[in-house]
């Protein structure tokens, strides 16, 4: 295949190409926004999981306190 040879596109096709590129740009913008939204949801989920972990640790600590108080009583 010869490289760097000028390409000629029919004017009708050229207009269609421009339209397609416009739609492509719009779609890409939408996709970027969706991705950003997914990233936000992921970080929200991570935050909730961290909160969960913190709660479980705290519950463990409190139960351990009650347990030791009940069973190490003099």
């Amino acid at each position: 295949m010869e490289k760097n040879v000028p390409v000629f596109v029919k004017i009708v096709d050229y207009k269609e190409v421009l339209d397609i590129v416009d739609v492509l740009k719009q779609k890409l913008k939408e996709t970027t926004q969706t991705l950003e939204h997914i990233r936000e949801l992921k970080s929200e989920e991570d935050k909730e999981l961290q909160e969960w972990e913190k709660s479980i640790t705290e519950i463990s600590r409190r139960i351990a306190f009650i347990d030791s108080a009940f069973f190490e009583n003099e």
Partner: protein
Amino acid sequence: MNKKIPKRKMELPAHDETYFIYLKNPLEYRRQLLESTRRTIHCLKNYQRILLIRQKKLEELQKLKTSLKELLYLNKKLNEKLPKYDKSFLEGMKSEDKVKPARATPINARKPAVPVPHRERSELDKLEESLAGIEKKLRTLQ
């Protein structure tokens, strides 16, 4: 979570209804227990929130998949609009080559599609196939 509830040191006596244990600070135990309950309920609420977030995330992923499919379609359309060879023109070129000296090959020659044996193909197979095709085209451009 590394913190574990420690094992009890004291063994419980055999069941006896007259056995009582003195608690030094009952209010503090009650408080701790209530706090634990509060936290547990908080965890359950948290679980519901996580379920909602995951549901939203699934919806967004579905949207992303649709958008990517649309992008793929638009790319294909764009590719179609670019000048390409007519198959019969190419064949004519080959027969002329035998008689005449070699001519410059047209700029955007495309190889005819390789016939694929008919079989059930998964979505992944199709994607891999089109990916291989595109990579091949890219190599010819380099």
